[in-house]
């Protein structure tokens, strides 16, 4: 199948999945006891005053039937009106647009760290297999994967924000406003988020490279007298990266969960923090918008991974 047709088919599948996810999320959210109005007003406003509660519920359309709520929401969503956050009072679309670049920057930075650390570490580990270096790198990556990100974050804040105050302890400054301060403020959060995946990545790179290096064609290349460096760079690295690309893609897709912790600790106004706040507050409009965004993110990333996959290994062109 030509690549173009393949992408179209995948996009169609994605839309169907999106629609199902959307409906499922909406229904499940309605089944959970209580809503954002109850959660927020339970401790603060007279629950026995129907006028106050009814006014707020009506304001957010929570007094309609589920079907009506879903249909209203879907119609508005498709026309760009993603509703109003019950937890903050802001328009959901505006919240999203404000926070998306922040989280994207966090993801890109984390991916950069994980690639910068993970791939070289994995390569070194594979080439120096069973040596002291291999053990050291493997231990390091294991520690990177195991350390809880909230602990790592707080330790780094105290180290570089308080004890040796060379970086801001928390907060976010947009790049357009102050590029240097933006980069400084994102060093620690991206590092924390990146080190987890770096460990994972290193292990994948190591095992993938080892597998490739054991292939016959590599033995042939050695027999032909090619240098080890040439063998690695020209023949081994590219096929070894195939599963690694998948891992990077999957990691990106799932980074939102880790992003929440990092965004809360470092006080970064991103999508992760917004999402979890919304879940705890039963802020349905935000939850729904976020879930759709996450689904789109996963679907798009998987599609991109498949395309890159095809490029890296011509044998894996889509053939349906």
């Amino acid at each position, binding site marked *: 199948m030509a690549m173009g047709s393949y992408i179209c088919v995948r996009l169609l599948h994605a839309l169907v999945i999106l629609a199902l996810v959307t409906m499922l999320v909406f229904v499940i959210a309605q089944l959970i*006891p*209580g*809503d954002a109005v*109850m*959660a*927020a007003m*339970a*401790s*603060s*406003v*007279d*629950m*026995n*005053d129907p*006028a*106050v509660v009814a*006014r*707020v519920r009506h*304001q957010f359309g929570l007094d309609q039937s589920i079907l009506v709520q879903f249909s209203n929401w879907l119609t508005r969503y498709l026309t760009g009106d993603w509703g109003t956050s*019950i*937890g*903050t*009072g*802001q328009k959901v679309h505006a*919240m999203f647009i*404000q*926070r998306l670049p922040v989280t994207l920057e966090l993801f890109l930075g984390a991916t950069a760290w994980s690639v910068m650390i993970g791939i070289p570490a994995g390569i070194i580990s594979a080439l120096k297999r069973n040596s002291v270096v291999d053990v050291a790198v493997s231990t390091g990556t294991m520690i990177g994967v195991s350390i809880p990100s909230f602990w790592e974050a*707080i330790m780094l*804040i*105290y180290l570089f*924000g*308080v004890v040796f*105050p060379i970086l*801001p*302890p*928390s*907060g*976010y400054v947009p790049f357009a406003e102050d590029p240097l301060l933006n980069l400084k403020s994102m060093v620690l959060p991206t590092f924390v988020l990146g080190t987890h995946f770096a460990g994972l990545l290193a292990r994948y790179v190591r095992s993938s490279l080892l597998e490739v290096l054991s292939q016959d064609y590599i033995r042939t290349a050695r027999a032909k007298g090619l240098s080890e460096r040439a063998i690695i760079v020209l023949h081994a690295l590219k096929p070894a990266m195939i599963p690694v690309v998948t891992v990077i893609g999957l990691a990106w897709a799932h980074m939102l969960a880790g992003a929440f912790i990092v965004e*809360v*600790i*470092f*006080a970064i*106004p991103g999508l992760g*923090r*917004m999402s979890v706040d919304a879940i*705890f507050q*039963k802020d349905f409009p935000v939850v729904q918008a976020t879930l759709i965004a996450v689904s789109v993110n996963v679907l798009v990333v998987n599609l991109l991974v498949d395309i890159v996959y095809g490029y890296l290994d011509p044998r894996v062109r889509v053939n349906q």
Partner: protein
Amino acid sequence: MDSNPDRREFVLGFVAAAFGAMLAPQSAAASGALRDQPWAVWDYKNKPVRGGYFRTAVERYIGKMNPNHWPVLDWISMNYFHERLMLTDGEYKPVPWLLEELKFEDPQTVLMRLREGVEFHDGSKFNAAAVKYQMEWIRDPKSNAWTAAWLAPLVSIDVVDERTLRWKFNVAWAAFAGVMANAPGFAMSAAALQADVEKYDSEPRGTGPYLLEEASPDNFLKLKRNPNWWFARASGNSEMPYFDGIHISVIPDPAVRLANLRAGKIDALTLDKSQYAALKDDPSVTVYRLPASHVNALRFNTTKGVFQDVRLRTAVSHALDRKALIAGTQLGFARLASCMFPGDHWCHNPELAPVAYDPALSKKLLAEAGHANGLTVRGYYINTTMGQTIAEAVKNMLAKVGIDWQVDLLPATALATRMQALDYDLASSGWLFIHDPDLMPTGLYHPNGGFNFGRSKNDAAIALIEAGRREIDFDKRQKIYWQLEKVLYDAYEDAWLWWEETLVAYRKNVMGRDHENLLKYKDVWFWSHPLWFKDGKA
């Protein structure tokens, strides 16, 4: 309601206080030429210096900046750009602020005189027409003001002259001054409301010492000095406010907020009690301990189940070692509670002593009530870290006298559901920001109260609550609430545990904080005595 004061809780309690204030009677008259007020003393050892941006941190972003639109999540920040018609003093009594005088002509009519020379941030005048417009706007259903219900007794507002209004109510509304000290009392520019109400949610126009400079949702709020602040002129302190502005960072994690304070990135912070140890010997910071008008308690279901028996309620109350609870869960930073009103509140009955820890008495009472072999009761507590700690401690104390408290840790929504369904015997309770005295008793003990749902039906208490709402004479009203406390205390209606305290840390270069007078006058002192930086720099 778990009383673990942080900013989110501040919001909830502020709202609760405002709502209850609507229902409560209030003193007959409150008046004040500014310079005649006991708190109007600015006798500084060091001359205030202008300059610098004061930096602080909060857990959550403010949300909407129209105090009558929901949600508002940071009322402290709200007070920087909006001011109220009334503030409260050291005993939580309303005192005029934007008002010069508030006088009851009769229990259902109030004459209100506004301060002279006050302007909104958009240059429009703070006058009788503006106040009238604002209040009518609040009451208009199209405005979606969640505070509309609090003005329910209001019949009409008449403009008498440029600075005078006559308010008429459909009942004796002694709580009126209390309401004006809360959310509906924040003065908003009528011109701005008329021009664009939606815009007001993010671009407020109050009368406060600071104007909104920049807002970045979930990130920060930046305010700049109001050079035309009326209070500077009226008080004769023309340089007020002294800071060039205020920068409020949103930092959800308390450990990170502390890190920012220690790194010198913020100048003041409300601390978690556990953070006191880390800061008490820090030479760059001063930590202040303040009483807070919050109470932490346990509520009984006195209309269903075993706690209809006052002996069992008494047994529970005496089984609790309140001193140990304070020492263990609050690290010593709380005051033993005798009843619901904090010790510094004007409605606190000074003759009531905290319930004594007496497990032997508890066991005796349990046996008398037919539970010599033990008693199993059900309940819930709010599912927070502090909630879990307190619930565990109380559970252990009750177990020692033979009471098995099967307590579920619940989030707010599930807790509200159980509370409404009266699906408990013993559960978490309390109140935040106890200002006007009617809100809490109504909420907890009146059939129409927002947190009762029929779990308490003490007829003597109900009669006193209703009497307190109508009584506009201050002394008589105070006696009513003292009596109310005694009635609830004698009936062991609830188990009151402690009154809260707050810890606030300031960097040493922040000047002007008079802790003694702040304790004496509280709210009105805080807002009338702005701080400054030594040398005018952060």
